[in-house]
């Protein structure tokens, strides 16, 4: 393991993380819900009365974030290296996997671990391990 010190951005990582945690805290304290993005988004495909507006609003907030950020400063670098076939395969796996696993990086990773949920800890270890393994296989075995 060799750390890429040039890519390491501890200050912005901690500041961004604190904002993410603050958003999750706000949502828990005011709305009484978990800021789990896969569940909020996926729940829109299973519409129930009175359950739609807040989901749409949360999703709209995320989509509006780049515009909000640009009011203050230019967007940082965003680079998507994956080609379209890989992106589509990845999207399908993320879309189905997060629903079967009942959570993603936000709901299990941030909120679940903040709540000391054993279920979320197991889910987080599983998706992190699968993510590490996939990148290892792609970059160091398949040589992509």
């Amino acid at each position: 393991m060799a750390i890429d010190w040039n890519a390491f951005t501890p200050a912005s990582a901690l500041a961004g993380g604190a904002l993410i945690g603050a958003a999750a805290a706000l949502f828990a304290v005011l709305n009484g819900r978990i800021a789990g993005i896969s569940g909020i988004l996926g729940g829109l495909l299973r519409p129930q009365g009175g359950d739609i507006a807040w989901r749409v609003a949360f999703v709209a907030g995320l989509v509006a974030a780049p515009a909000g950020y640009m009011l203050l400063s230019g967007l940082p670098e965003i680079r998507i290296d994956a080609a379209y076939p890989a992106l589509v395969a990845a999207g399908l796996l993320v879309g189905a996997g997060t629903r079967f696993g009942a959570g993603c990086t936000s709901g299990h990773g941030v909120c679940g671990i903040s709540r000391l949920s054993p279920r979320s800890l197991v889910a987080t270890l599983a998706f992190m391990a699968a993510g590490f393994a996939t990148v290892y296989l792609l970059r160091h075995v398949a040589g992509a």
Partner: protein
Amino acid sequence: MLYTFTAFLAGLVFGVGLIVAGMANPAKVLGFLDVAGAWDPSLALVMGGAIAAGAGAFALMRSRTRTLLGAPVLLPVAGKIDRRLVLGSLVFGIGWGLAGICPGPALVLAGTASAKGLAFLAALLAGNALYEFLDARRRSDPVA
């Protein structure tokens, strides 16, 4: 109405946090997942910062039945750790490792009008729909 507005606000702050943290840049996420290459450990600090900022709020809400706005507290009760949770999370992790995008950043990327981001989001929604289809079949046929 206020409930919907605070949901929007939470989504917006969450999304800005993802951009600040570098989570909205798939190349940086893959740099974190590539532990055997030039490793960028930044994203571990994102999760650390988020948990530090969020944990207090979740501890506060644990003993409450109403939020500060008077809405019911709907935080999940401890569920069981089953095959579905682990397999779903593994599938999610494979998709995450393929493209470096999880559900929150997918929505933020859509907000930048990135063609690749939108393609990923479309596939993610198709994956959500696939889950709904399979889950509806499972519930109507308990043997499967």
